[in-house]
C-alpha cells in the first residue's frame, strides 16, 4: 500500500489543473440555464472535447496507433479527478470514449479500429447505443430487431428504444438478430450503423425531467455493409456484454459523488430549521455522515480497482457492484438534498426561487434514470449473485 504519486505524476496533475483553469468554458455547457439550448450546445460540446483531445487529455490509455498515448491508467485517473474537481462539462462523445472504444480495442477488426477510434477521440463522430427494444429491456437477449444478410449487406428492420443521443449521433453500435432459429443468446450480432442511412427514423421521447434526452429509433430496410460487423456473426452477445461492462463502470464511476456530497453539505449548512443550521439537526446530521462514508468508500474502492488494473488482475465481483452502488448513491445524495430543501423542493428548475442554482430537481430525477439505464439495480443484483457468487440461475 502506497498512496504517493510520483513527482512526475504530481507535476502532471498540476499541469492538467492549470490547463483546465485556463481553458474551461465558463458557460453554456453544464447545468446552467444557457446550456440547455440544444442548437448551439452540440457544436460547443464537440469543440470542447476536441480541445481536450488536442491538449492530450482524452483516452490517455488507448494504444498510440489509434490516437491514444498508451499511458498507464494512473494518468487517466488524474485527468478524470481534475475534470471533476474543475466541474468540467461532460464529454459529448462519452458513449464512444467509454463504451464502444474499449469494446472495439478488444473485439474490433484492424480496419474498424483504424476507421472509428480516432474520430471517437476528436468528437468528429458521436455514437449512440442500440440495445433496448420495446420488448427487450432487462431481458435484452430477447431482442427482435432483425438483420438479414443480402449480398454484402445486412438489411435491418425493427425498433430500438431509450436511445440516448440518437437525435444528434453520427453512428450507432447496435444489437440485431441474425439467426432467429438459434437459442436467444446465440443468434445476436453486433453491428455498426451510420445514422444517416436511409430508412432510419429517430423520434424523440420526453423524459420525466422534461428533456428530450432519449429516443425511439425505427429501422425500415436499413442497409448496413457487412464489414460493419464486430466479431463473428451470431457471436454478438459476448461483445454486447463487454460494452455493458464498460458502460456500468462508467455509470457507477465514483468521481462526481464526492463533488455532489460537498454540494449537499454546503446546502445543508445554508438551510436553517428553527433557527439552527440543518447540519445541527441530529437526525439529518447522521444521515449526511452516512452518505459521506459511502462516498468515501467508493473513492477507495475505485483506487483499489485502479491498482488491480495496473497489477494486471482481472476484474472480479468487486467490479460487478460499481453500477449498482454508484448510481444508487448518487440518487440517495440527491434525495437527501431534496429533503433538505423542504418546501423549496416543490419548485422545478425553471422557477427563479429554486435553491442552489436549481441543480437538485434535475439531478434527483436524472440520477434515478441512471439507476435504471445500463441494467436496473435488480438486474445488477442478479449478475452479482449469479456471476459473482455462482448462485443458481433462475431461468
Amino acid at each position, binding site marked *: *500500500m*502506497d*498512496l*504517493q*504519486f510520483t513527482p512526475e*505524476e504530481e507535476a502532471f496533475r498540476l499541469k492538467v489543473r492549470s490547463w483546465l483553469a485556463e481553458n474551461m468554458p465558463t458557460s453554456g455547457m453544464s447545468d446552467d440555464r444557457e446550456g440547455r439550448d440544444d442548437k448551439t450546445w452540440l457544436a460547443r460540446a464537440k469543440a470542447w472535447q476536441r480541445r481536450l483531445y488536442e491538449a492530450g487529455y482524452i483516452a490517455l490509455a488507448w494504444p498510440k496507433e489509434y490516437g491514444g498515448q498508451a499511458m498507464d491508467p*494512473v494518468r487517466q485517473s488524474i485527468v478524470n479527478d481534475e475534470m471533476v474537481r474543475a466541474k468540467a462539462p461532460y464529454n459529448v462523445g462519452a458513449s464512444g470514449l467509454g463504451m464502444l472504444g474499449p469494446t472495439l480495442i478488444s473485439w474490433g477488426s484492424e480496419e474498424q479500429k483504424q476507421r472509428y477510434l480516432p474520430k471517437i477521440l476528436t468528437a468528429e463522430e458521436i455514437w449512440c447505443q442500440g440495445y433496448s427494444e420495446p420488448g427487450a429491456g432487462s431481458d435484452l437477449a430477447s431482442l427482435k430487431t432483425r438483420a438479414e444478410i443480402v449480398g454484402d449487406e445486412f438489411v435491418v428492420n425493427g425498433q430500438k428504444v431509450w436511445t440516448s443521443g440518437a437525435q444528434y449521433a453520427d453512428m450507432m453500435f447496435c444489437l440485431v438478430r441474425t439467426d432467429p432459429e438459434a437459442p436467444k443468446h446465440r443468434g445476436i450480432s453486433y453491428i455498426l450503423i451510420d445514422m444517416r442511412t436511409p430508412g432510419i427514423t429517430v423520434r424523440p421521447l420526453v423524459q420525466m425531467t422534461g428533456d428530450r434526452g432519449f429516443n425511439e429509433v425505427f429501422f425500415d430496410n436499413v442497409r448496413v455493409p457487412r464489414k460493419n460487423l464486430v466479431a463473428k456473426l451470431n457471436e454478438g452477445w459476448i461483445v454486447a456484454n463487454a460494452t455493458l461492462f464498460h458502460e456500468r463502470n462508467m455509470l457507477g464511476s465514483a468521481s462526481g459523488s464526492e463533488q455532489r456530497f460537498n454540494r449537499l*453539505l454546503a446546502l*445543508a*449548512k445554508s438551510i436553517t430549521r428553527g433557527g439552527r443550521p440543518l*447540519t*445541527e439537526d441530529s437526525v439529518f*446530521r*447522521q444521515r*449526511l*455522515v*452516512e452518505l*459521506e*462514508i*459511502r462516498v*468515501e*468508500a*467508493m473513492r*477507495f*474502492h475505485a*483506487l*483499489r480497482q*485502479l*491498482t*488491480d488494473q*495496473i*497489477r494486471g488482475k482481472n476484474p472480479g*465481483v*468487486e467490479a*460487478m*457492484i460499481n453500477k*449498482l*452502488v454508484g448510481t444508487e448513491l448518487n440518487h440517495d445524495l440527491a434525495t437527501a438534498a431534496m429533503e433538505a430543501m423542504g418546501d423549496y423542493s416543490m419548485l422545478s428548475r425553471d422557477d427563479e426561487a429554486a435553491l442552489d442554482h436549481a441543480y437538485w430537481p434535475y439531478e434527483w430525477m436524472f440520477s434515478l434514470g441512471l439507476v435504471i439505464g445500463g441494467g436496473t439495480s*435488480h438486474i*445488477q*443484483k*442478479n449478475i*452479482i*449473485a*449469479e456471476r*459473482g*457468487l*455462482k*448462485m*443458481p*440461475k*433462475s431461468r
Partner: protein
Amino acid sequence: MDFGLSEEQQQLKESARAFLSGECPTTFVRKTMATGEGYPRELYDHIAKLGWRGLIVPEKFGGAGLGMLDMAVILEEGGYAAMPGPFLFSSVLAASALKLSGSEQLKAKWLTPLAEGKAIGTVAIVESAGSIDQRDINATATKGGAGFHLTGAKMFVPYANVADFVVVAAKNNAREISLFVADAKAPGVTIRSLKNLDLTRRVSNVELKGAPAEQLGGGDDLFAKLIDVAAIAVAADSLGGTERALEMAVDYSKVREQFGKPIGSFQALKHAAAEIVADVEPARAMLWYAAYAQDTGAADAERVASMAKARLCDIYSRGTDRAVLMHGGIGFTWEHDMHLWFKRARFNESYFGSPSFHRERVAVLGAY
C-alpha cells in the same frame, strides 16, 4: 500509487485462513464457548509462536514491529473464524496503549511478555453509562507514593477474567483524562465476570478501590488514538465476519431445495446476498485505507477510522440478519453456527463506540 495488500500481506492472510480453518473450526469455537473463562490457552500459545501476539509490538520489545494494515489482515481472518479469546483486546488495544504512551521501562515490563505470549492485557474504559464518550468516564486517579491509585467501577472489560494487566482510563482532579496500567492481581482490583450474549467475547466488571497503577500518558489525543486503533480492529473483525456469514448463506442456498429447486435460484435470496457484497467490497477498501492512514499518520486517520467502524459494524449487523434469514428456521437454532456471527456482530457494533457515536465523530471532524 498502489492501493491494496502487498504480496506479503496476501500471504499472511492466506496462511492465517489456513491455520484457523485447521485449528479453530466452529467445533473448537463451541468448545471454548462452553468453558468458564472463554480463553483457549493452547490456541493462544500456538498463535504466539506464529508471531501474532506481538505483531504490532516494536522489535525492540520482542514483537514483529508490523503495522495496523498487517494486523487488520489477521483480525479479518479472526473475525472470519469467530476466533474466541482476548487477542484483539490484548495484542491490539493493550499493546497499542503501551506502544503509544508508556515509558521504556513500562514497555519492557508489559509489552515484552505480551509479545512473547506470556501475558494478556486488556483495556478498561467504559463505566455504568455503557459508553466510550470521554464525558462518561468518572474513575479517578490520585497521586500517591511512586505512582497513582485508581478508584472507580469499570464495566464491560473484555477478558479481565484472564488478564495479567489492565490499561485503565481515569481522570485527575482537573478531570483531565489519562491512561494507567495496573496489575490485574493487585490489591484493590476486583474482577467479576458478566454473563455474555456472545460467548466468543467475555466481559467483566473491574472494581477499582485505590488500586496501585502507573501512568502511561495523558490527554485527549492519546485517548482519541486508542479509539482509532480500536475502531480499525473491530472493523477488520467485522469484515471477516460478514464474509463468513455471506459465504455460509450462499453455500446453503445452493443445496437447500424448496418449490423443487435450490432456494438460491430465487431472486429474493440473490438480491439479499448481492446487497451484502455491494456493502462489503467498498468497505473493505475503506478499511485498508483506515489502517494505512493509521500506520502513516495521515491527516485524516481519525476521521477514516471512525468511518470504517461505523460502516463495517452496520454492514456486519445487517449482513448477519440477512444471512440468518436466508437460512430460514435452521438459522435460528443453537446447533447451526450462524448465531456465532450474528451475536458477534452485536458485540462489535457496541464495543468502542456505536456507529452513531462514530458518525458524530466524523461530523465534528468534518466541521459539519
